[in-house]
């Protein structure tokens, strides 16, 4: 084996040995085969819409998605009228008007989706001292991202013997420290899907994960599609560079 290969092998072994340490805090979630994984990955459009419904009917009472505007909802399959209707259903503070007063008005497409609490203190006061994080970036802000989220949402269980759970907390093996201030938010038939999909716990967890992967990485499909073209171009270009180099050096070696 040449030295470079030896070093590489050693580096891989060391990093494998070291990787469990990175998962410290919670159990490592199982890897799922998401539609958005892989070179040609894309979002599951119907799942995005269902995930949006789960967000609106369950999550949005405690968690915001501050980086998503109503206009963005057309990207997950809502028509412009539906997105407009969703915007108009909420009241947004605007102003000051000509008299210097702030006023409330129905939302517009350009407005961000409002967060459920006006500030952190209000959010903590309503949640027993815990702060429900904004979910816009949650699938990129946690190790194992979407796999973690799915495992967390489906992973609530009774604490094992001998584990004391503080009042107002739930046991979840995937959460860092195993105690989480959120009660299992999803249960079978927590929502009713218009498209006839049966709203099992797993189904809803899958749908909300799709939706929150989109809120975190809305350009994922553009990125993967462009990436394929760029990679093909670069492989051809590199091949041409190699051919040119061989040609130039042909009479030298």
């Amino acid at each position, binding site marked *: 084996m040449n030295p470079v290969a030896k*070093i590489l092998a050693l580096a891989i072994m060391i990093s494998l040995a070291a990787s469990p340490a990175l998962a410290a805090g919670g159990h490592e979630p199982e890897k799922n085969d998401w539609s958005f994984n892989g070179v040609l990955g894309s979002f599951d459009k119907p799942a995005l819409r269902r995930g949006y419904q789960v967000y609106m009917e369950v999550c949005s009472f405690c968690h915001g998605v501050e980086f998503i505007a109503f206009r963005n909802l057309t990207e997950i399959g809502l028509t412009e009228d539906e997105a407009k209707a969703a915007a108009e259903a909420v009241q947004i503070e605007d102003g000051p008007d000509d008299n210097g007063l702030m006023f409330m008005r129905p939302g517009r497409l350009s407005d961000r989706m409002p967060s459920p609490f006006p500030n952190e203190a209000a959010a903590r006061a309503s949640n027993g001292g815990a702060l429900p994080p904004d979910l816009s*970036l949650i699938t990129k802000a946690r190790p194992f991202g979407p796999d973690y989220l799915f495992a967390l949402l489906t992973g609530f269980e009774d604490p094992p013997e001998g584990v004391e759970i503080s009042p107002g907390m739930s046991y979840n093996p995937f959460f860092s420290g195993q105690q989480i201030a959120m009660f299992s938010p999803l249960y079978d038939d927590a929502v009713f899907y218009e498209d006839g999909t049966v709203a099992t716990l797993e189904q809803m967890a899958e749908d909300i994960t799709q939706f929150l992967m989109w809120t975190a990485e809305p350009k994922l499909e553009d990125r*993967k599609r462009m990436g394929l073209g760029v990679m093909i171009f670069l492989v051809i270009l590199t091949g041409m560079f190699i051919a040119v180099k061989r040609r130039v050096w042909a009479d030298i070696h």
Partner: protein
Amino acid sequence: MADLHEPEHNKMQLKGALGWVEYRLPWVNLLKNSVGTNYPTPRNLNYWWNFGSLAGLALLIEIVTGVVLNMHYVPTAEGAFASVERIMRDVNFGWLIRYVHANGASVFFAVIYLHMFRSFYYGSYKNPRELVWWLGLIIFFLMIITAFTGYVLPWGQMSFWAATVITNLASAIPVVGTDIVQWLWGDFSVGGSLLGRFNSLHYALPVAIVGVAVIHMWALHEHRSNNPLGIEVKGPQDTLPFHPYFTAKDLVGVGVFLLVLAGLVFYAPNMLGEPDNYIPANPLKTPNHIVPEWYLLPFYAILRAVPDKLGGVIAMGGSIIILFVVPWLDTSKVRSAKFRPIYKQFFWLFVIDTLILGVVGANAPEGNWIIIGQLATFYYFFHFIVILPVVGWIESPKPLPDSISTSVLGNKKSAAEPAE
């Protein structure tokens, strides 16, 4: 058009408008003499000599993407995180530009490390190229500061806490430490004031890097490239013109480099980043685990290997400063490790040691990692302070070939190049 500095036949004669400009500003001849047909280059350079041009390309990519990002970035504690998300969502191709910039920094460091290890293996830092080496180290130091200040700009959790940990190191300085830290912060805590000056430094330092890189190449062009045999060029039979031979060879490297960068950008853009940096900075909540980007992990491991704060800072600073003395610590007259059987073994041990330091830096300093980190740190310095001089004294190098051309062209079987 008599030229007092060069023989007439070396100067390219140009007609028309180009000739008019050339007479007044001889840029075509400058290119010809520096990367063209009139720059003799050792004919035996292998692909390890590609990383200089690739570093230049990486620097160019970082500057171009960085200038565009800065058009949209808001350097305030309140606005920074949201402005980065606006780049990712609302700026046309902002996601692409930011991912290229972030991953570009990683491949830039990878290229620089390979460039430095090349120098260690083939003794490129030795007489008469000590100043080429020094200038490279200055670039490396400026890169570290630039990368660190850049890591802080998104103002996520890791940005904030990395800034806190690293700026606090100055407090280890006796007597004036605390004053220096507050001077760095421009405040009594890490906040918007620090972010503003880091933004300014992150924009300014790459300009300095470009300047030092030009001097690095100027110094290189005086004695020209070292080569895998580490012996002097004896005549024209040992060299090939840079163009087209090494421009063609460098382009192959460019293709591979762009494939690696594109692979990261399009298919694993966040693999080398920390998830915590997608959480907005929160001064009240320390992350479980504060880590720098991968390319600074070995230095972070050295910092933490010494139980004393000031000692750690001295060790980390020393780990870079000692590199400046390497041309004199290495007492061997033979440059290339190819002819140094003992040094070659220690070279690979050193590579492994830096990898171990990187892994230690990524892990929390507890349990066995502490002692592994301390041993690896000790070995890092031991390599430079003891092994380099002693091996140079006791080793009997293999016989050197008479010349590059006899080695490459003459007896093909006996002088065949080992696989690189």
